[in-house]
């Protein structure tokens, strides 16, 4: 076939999460919050959150798109337009967004009145720190938060409020015997067809051409709030202090230097994978507009290109993707899990946004159910039978990952089950049973590769991230990023709230987050000599002996 058949090739940094390994510890959420949203105005904002499913999620019942109208809808003519309305309707409702969640739909953030602990007058009672709202400053009763229903998802009271459970209706009975539960960590999906970007009247939101990361230009955002409605995952948030939209950045300052995101790096279960996928940008629109919702997942797979195909590589080179990005795409764990093994599924493909954070559905509800009934939860035959028999978890997962089509979920779970059984035989010193692999359309070698990636999950194999274009000589370019778009007053780039302070880590001129600074910092940390020109000396670290370079400004003769 001629190379013309491949449209514009673009690269996307994508993520896969292996849900079987998520223990719901919220480390990803906490480290993400510490890194990005520990500022006033975004107290309620979790770029990364972990939900218990079945459950309502955060914000509450965000998946109920009849109410929130996020994502795209297919018109009768087969075109796509934002579900909340096209351009004219957006402008007509710009003065008050009719579909915006209120702070109560997230939760009202609070702090505690700690001062009372030391200023309370002497008395018989022990003083307490009462909760106070960070929104109104008034004392409040805490009644909900981002993971209020943590671990309670399978229960009747909260689980029945899950929009998916309601859709499945009578089938999901939250009886004790049939209950199941798993964790779903969520970040921005960095979609190929982002409806938040499409909803932004100012054009402040954009998808980065180089790595597909969806960002908000803080200088162009005018606070019209349409992106909050547009995102069906409700992963664009409104900073109520600055009046601007903020969202997960896929930790782009880290990705640019080849490091995994904070949520991935700190994941205790090591369940996150990061890598590059190549896709045909010209096929996205048609793939997102296929008629039948159940065809969206296969259509999305079709958009992704095989980096091992020489024609794809040629087309990628033609479209300006550097060779090391193509090589990285060839080693990408995402490509392996999504395309080759086909075990990672997109979250809610029916929103038609082509999400780029993929999930390996959990086999654990099936295994738990088997073992609790006294069966061998790792026997291939038992597992396959159970996947067929346990309709409820499978259909629930299908509503999450394949727009309701149970077949791909079943196929994935069978592969995971086959991997368990196949590897157990090896661990027990038995022969490799190739028939197990064949029964799920794989080979034993594939299964062992998948096992290595999913179970051993080596750091270098989980994260295959090329550094940003133009960093080294081979790219024939030099990065000339002077400022950082997060480097605004009170922003995360400023190293804290409320601007520069005279003392401590955040003092002095803020360092922009650039590749050069990253390398300079690493050189400085790992070498014995001070690298680069001396800037300033932190007197708090000075032991009083000698005269460290940089303690005084350079003498005139030194400068000359």
């Amino acid at each position, binding site marked *: 076939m001629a190379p013309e058949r491949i449209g514009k090739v673009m690269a996307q940094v994508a993520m896969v999460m292996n849900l079987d390994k998520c223990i719901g510890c919220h480390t990803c959420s906490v480290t993400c919050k510490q890194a990005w949203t520990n500022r006033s105005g975004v107290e309620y904002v979790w770029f990364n959150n972990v939900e218990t499913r079945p459950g309502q999620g955060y914000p509450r019942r965000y998946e109920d798109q009849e109410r929130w109208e996020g994502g795209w809808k297919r018109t009768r003519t087969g075109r796509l337009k934002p579900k909340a309305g096209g351009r004219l309707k957006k402008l007509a409702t710009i003065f*008050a967004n009719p579909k915006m969640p209120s*702070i109560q739909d997230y939760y009202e953030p609070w702090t505690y009145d700690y001062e009372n602990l030391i200023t309370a007058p002497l008395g018989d009672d022990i003083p307490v720190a009462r909760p106070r*709202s960070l929104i109104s400053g008034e004392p409040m009763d805490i009644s909900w938060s981002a993971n209020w229903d943590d671990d309670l998802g399978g229960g009747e009271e909260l689980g029945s409020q899950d929009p998916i459970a309601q859709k499945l209706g009578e089938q999901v009975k939250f009886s004790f015997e049939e209950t199941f539960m798993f964790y779903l960590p969520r970040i921005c999906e960095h979609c190929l067809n982002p409806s938040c970007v499409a909803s932004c009247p100012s054009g402040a939101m954009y*998808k980065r051409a180089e790595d597909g990361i969806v960002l908000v230009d803080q200088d162009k*955002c005018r606070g019209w709030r349409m992106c909050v409605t547009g995102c069906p995952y409700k992963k664009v948030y409104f900073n*109520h202090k*600055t009046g601007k939209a903020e969202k997960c950045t896929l930790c782009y300052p880290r990705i640019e230097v080849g490091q995994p995101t904070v949520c991935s790096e700190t994941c205790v279960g090591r369940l996150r994978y990061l890598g590059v996928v190549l896709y045909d940008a010209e096929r996205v629109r048609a793939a997102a507009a296929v008629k039948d919702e159940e065809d969206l997942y296969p259509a999305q797979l079709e958009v992704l290109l095989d980096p091992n195909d020489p024609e794809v590589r040629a087309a990628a080179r033609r479209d300006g993707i550097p060779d090391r990005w193509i090589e990285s795409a060839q080693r990408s764990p995402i490509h392996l899990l999504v395309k080759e093994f086909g075990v990672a599924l997109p979250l809610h493909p029916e929103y038609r946004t082509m999400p780029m954070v993929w999930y390996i559905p959990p086999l654990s509800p099936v295994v738990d159910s088997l073992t609790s009934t006294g069966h061998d939860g790792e026997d291939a035959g038992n597992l396959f039978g159970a996947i067929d028999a346990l309709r409820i978890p499978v259909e629930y997962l299908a509503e999450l990952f394949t727009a309701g089509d149970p077949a791909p979920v079943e196929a994935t779970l069978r592969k995971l089950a086959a991997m368990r059984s196949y590897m157990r035989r090896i661990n027990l010193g038995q022969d490799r049973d190739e028939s197990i692999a064949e029964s799920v359309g794989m080979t034993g070698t594939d299964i062992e590769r998948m096992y290595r990636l999913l179970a051993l999950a080596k750091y270098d194999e989980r994260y295959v991230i090329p550094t940003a274009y133009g960093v080294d000589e081979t790219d024939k370019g030099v990065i000339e990023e002077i400022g950082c778009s997060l480097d605004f007053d009170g922003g995360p780039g400023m190293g804290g709230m409320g601007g520069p302070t005279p003392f401590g880590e955040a003092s002095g001129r803020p360092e922009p987050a650039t590749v050069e600074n990253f390398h300079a910092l690493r050189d400085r940390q790992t070498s014995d000599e001070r690298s680069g020109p001396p800037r300033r000396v932190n007197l708090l670290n000075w032991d009083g002996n000698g005269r460290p370079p940089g303690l005084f400004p350079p003498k005139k003769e030194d400068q000359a």
Partner: protein
Amino acid sequence: MTPTSLDYLAWGALPYVVLAVLVGGTVWRYRYDRFGWTTRSSQLYESRLLRIASPVFHFGLLVVIVGHAVGLLIPESWTHAVGLSDEAYHVLALSMGVIAGIATLGGIALLIYRRRTTGPVFSATTVNDKTMYLVLTAAIVSGLAVTLLSAYSGFTGGVEVDYRQTVSVWFRSIWVLQPDVAAMSAASTGFKIHVLIGLGLFSLFPFSRLVHAFSAPVGYLFRPYIVYRSRGREPARSTRPVRRGWS
């Protein structure tokens, strides 16, 4: 009536000062405080009242702006030429003006009520906002008052001076750098007050949250849905003032 020196100051010099502040201030704000250039919506805190009050206010205001543009920019001779009688014009203009003015006033009254009574919204209100609300409300009230007075004197056959022969003539003369001070001096006191408040509002414009009006996203109608942007260069210029423009 011959114009006094105060008239020359108010109607000859002041408009140009305000124009310079408006244009210069907007350019300054755009260059140095693009991050502070936002609607600063409080919908996250409260949306029940906002969803009624804000559209009523804004759409009323849009009609008011169109009305001002028509009344100030189109000379009487043009409407005569298309065969529109003065009576018909006034009935049309005043009825539209009264409806839009009342909607705007009602809208802003509800918005101010909401701002004052909803705790989180009130605590997010800066001194700058309060000043802006004061001037904006005064402009709306005085404008509605002169409209109602005109309508009243029109019905009773009084001798209200027609703004189309005074204010509008003066307004158009500003733009050709030949301010017709005499025309404006001949206007009634009500109009003079309204014009002065209006000038105050314009000079406040670049330094308040009103700037969001300048970024009305008309371009949205003409751009593709998905925006791609190259990583590229970031602006070299510092856009980081000590304080936001609205605080």
